[in-house]
């Protein structure tokens, strides 16, 4: 493609230093992927010259570790995603699972709108797994699929009675919290209320589009981005800050939209976007974080998701959770878990995902921690699947410490 400077994508900054290749978890796990420098800035120069792209670009998991380590600020993974999306305009997808995993919101909506559907859907997953149905769809039988909740977060939220406070935020729950783990959303509201924050939601929000981009459905993501960007800007104009409790949604809305799309108001609202724990850490810095905690003697091991790291907001959970009296928490510091949203669920990618996550799984097991802690929903599934140790959101730890 000709490089468009009206756009935020700038591969010109790449000095070919190769640090991204040394940091890429997928390159370390498989020779099938030639690395982020090659797939991103290097091949961007050549894509106009050849009639066909290299199928190896499908192996990028969009974990964004390359973006994080790049000393030149090249949005490498976004270049990869753009190329992947171009590739799938002319190539068949590997499996029907791509569509399902990229459009998880559709599935979530369908299942949570029908009474008892979640029970059957979850049962279906289990049975499907045992009879090889998922394998036929291109979903790995090794991956632990997320189960569906019987009631969505939005439905639960409406039943929560909140105290009104001056400080107001709008919560972008995202699909995973809304359809799969609504309790995390409830934890968020309870913890925020305890910190004198009023939480609003917006039923018009749609899936942030992160799984669509990673799955090669960028046009669908654009439609969603247009809707969300407009709504988010309006909330910020009303004086609300925006909170996410899923680091992939947060990254998408705050940063990737600006790299991929060109809608008005994106940079304005992005300044008011926070990860749910980051926001509390900010409160703590301002001396307004509620630290009236009960004792918690549980041993935890914390894993920082890649999409949190690339937001460059530090490790807010590792600032706040140690404030809980009696708590024992260590950081795993073992790189990517491998799942990368929907990547590790795909049959052809699952062995790579498990290899990438092996170091983390080992760390969790060796730590003898009772619980894993992580902001990202699919990371938590992968942690549980790889180590056998259950994992929870840091907000859940805080809610418990508040005795709620």
């Amino acid at each position: 493609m000709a490089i468009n400077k009206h756009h935020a994508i700038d591969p010109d900054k790449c000095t070919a230093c190769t640090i991204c290749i040394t940091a890429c978890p997928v390159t370390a796990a498989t020779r099938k992927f030639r690395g982020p420098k090659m797939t991103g800035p290097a091949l961007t120069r050549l894509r106009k010259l050849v009639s066909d792209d290299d199928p190896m670009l499908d192996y990028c998991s969009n974990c964004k570790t390359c973006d994080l380590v790049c000393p030149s600020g090249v949005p490498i993974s976004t270049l990869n995603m753009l190329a992947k999306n171009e590739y799938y305009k002319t190539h068949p997808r590997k499996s029907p699972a791509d569509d399902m995993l990229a459009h998880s919101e559709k599935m979530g909506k369908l299942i949570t709108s029908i009474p008892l559907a979640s029970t059957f859907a979850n049962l279906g997953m289990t049975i499907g797994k045992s009879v090889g149905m998922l394998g036929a769809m291109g979903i790995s039988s090794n991956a632990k699929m997320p189960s569906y909740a019987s009631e969505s977060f939005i439905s639960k939220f409406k039943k929560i009675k909140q105290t009104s406070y001056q400080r107001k935020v709008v919560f972008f729950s995202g699909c995973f919290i809304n359809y799969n783990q609504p309790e995390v959303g409830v934890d968020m509201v309870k913890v925020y209320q305890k910190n004198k924050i009023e939480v609003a939601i917006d039923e018009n929000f749609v899936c942030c589009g992160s799984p669509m981009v990673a799955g090669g459905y960028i046009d669908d993501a654009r439609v969603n981005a247009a809707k969300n960007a407009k709504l988010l800007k309006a909330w910020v104009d009303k004086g609300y800050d925006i909170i996410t409790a899923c680091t992939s949604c947060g990254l998408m809305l705050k940063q990737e939209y600006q790299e991929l799309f060109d809608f008005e108001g994106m940079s304005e609202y992005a300044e008011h976007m926070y990860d749910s724990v980051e926001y509390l850490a900010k409160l703590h810095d301002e001396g307004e974080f509620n630290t009236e905690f009960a004792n918690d003697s549980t041993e935890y091991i914390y894993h920082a998701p890649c999409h949190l790291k690339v937001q460059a907001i530090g490790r807010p959970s590792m600032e706040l959770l140690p404030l809980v009296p009696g708590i024992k928490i260590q950081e795993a510091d073992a790189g990517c878990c491998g799942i990368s949203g929907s990547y590790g669920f795909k049959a052809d990618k699952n062995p790579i995902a498990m290899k990438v996550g092996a170091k983390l799984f080992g760390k969790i097991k060796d730590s003898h921690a009772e619980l894993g802690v992580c902001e990202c929903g699919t990371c938590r599934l992968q942690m549980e699947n790889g180590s056998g140790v259950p994992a929870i959101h840091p907000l859940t730890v805080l809610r418990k410490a508040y005795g709620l």
Partner: protein
Amino acid sequence: MLKTTVVVIGGGATGVGILRDLSMRGVDALLVERDDLGYWTSSRFHGLLHSGGRYAVKDKEAAKECIEENTILRKIGKQCVEATESIFVRAPEDSEEFEAEWVKSCKECGIYAVPMSMDEAFKLEPNLSRKLLSAYRCPGAAVDGFRLLWQTVASANKYGGKAKTYTEVIGIETVNGEVAGVHVRDRWTGEEYKIACDYVISATGSFAGNVAHLAGIDVNVKPSKGTLIAFNHRICNHVVHRLHPSSDADIFVPHGSITILGTSSIDSAPDDTSSETSEVLDMMNIGKVTFENLYDYRILRVFAGTRPLYSADPNAKGRSASRGFVALDHAHDGIKHFMSVCGGKFTTYRLMAEKVCDIVCEQLGVNTACRTAEENLVDGPSDDLMNRAKAVFPSYGAELAASRLGNEKLERVIKRIESRPETKELVCECENVTLAEIEEIASEPSSHTVSDLRRRTRLGMGTCQGTFCAYRSVGAVDKDDMPWAKDTVFLFKEFLETRWKGIRPVLWGNMLRDIELTRAIYDAALNLSGVDEIK
């Protein structure tokens, strides 16, 4: 003693065109080149295959020649030409009357110039300045100079024509006022020897005066230096011209992975390929009219070449001197069967060769007609070969290698990878050059330096400008069966210093950061400059 009918001096476009033409007419011919093929002017240009649009108003004859040759080269040189089309754009500072005259002239010359709305133009080329007023599509194209030269020689080879690089002519021998041969020196071994011949054609462009001087004859070439700027990416996917009378820095060519902006016009010595920062800045300021965000794009390097402008008037200068070519029969100067060819354009290289060879053949009593427009330079790869290539190359590599190598060499490279799969690894990641290609080209007798490999493969011509492929390629050629590659420190320095020459005048922004990385690797880590340890 080496004997041939015609010695062609100069391995630029004109020389190789003549070699091919003569060989196809059955005339025994040998080309000698002091440096590598395409070392001088024939690679130091935009890489533009003119549509003729640029000359339509001022020089209709040249414009007609361009469109005819453009059409022929697209056909016979498919592997060297990227048929991008060109867009002519008029800026507010360009004359509206000229536009009208230009449209009329293009029509007269048979060059299509299809008007389009600015919205269409911006859709095709999103980076164009929004201030531009009008746009036309024309049949311009991008052409790879190095590739065209080597493939022209490959075509000549099929008919017995040969080329010797790094062979410098040091004397022209005459007997009774008629050429008898040339004395040459092998620049690598220092060996001097004679090549007996009946005819000498000097196709040495800007050096035509120097070569004629060997026979005591004056030829008035006025070399005019043009600097070109290479950008890291494609800023545009079409050639983009300013729609105004030809001037400096008004052409952008998407050349392979890069964009080339040119050029300037400064009277110079024939071997002056230097560029100053001030020239670059002047060109950038003009280029900005076409692409308003030009300063945001990363410059990879600059390079310069000299136009071999000829004028019988020794005081004629610069761009206004004729761009037509001349064939000077030195019988008029008292030496028979010695001809100097100079002037001309890359686009019309085949036609110039045809005209020269018509004269030469007549003098040699050869009646065969020119066939160079009818036959492809090299065969394109068959579907079968491409399938074999795609099975072993990364998919990008297959197509790029096919156009770089042509059919025969591609097959040899595929065989290398088939027998040793590890040779599909990339030595140059920026331009996707495999180890197998490096090994294949390095084993040819014409290879003496890593720069030679670079001109054949595009090794080191991308983003990192040799930082990562220098040590890989030197490592790849440092083998017992590669006698030219023994002095690895020399290989490193020769390669890196030619890269540095082009980077130095544009040492700011990202390129400055890049070169610091290069310095860290070669000066600090590898201590290439040989700094002694402090004891």
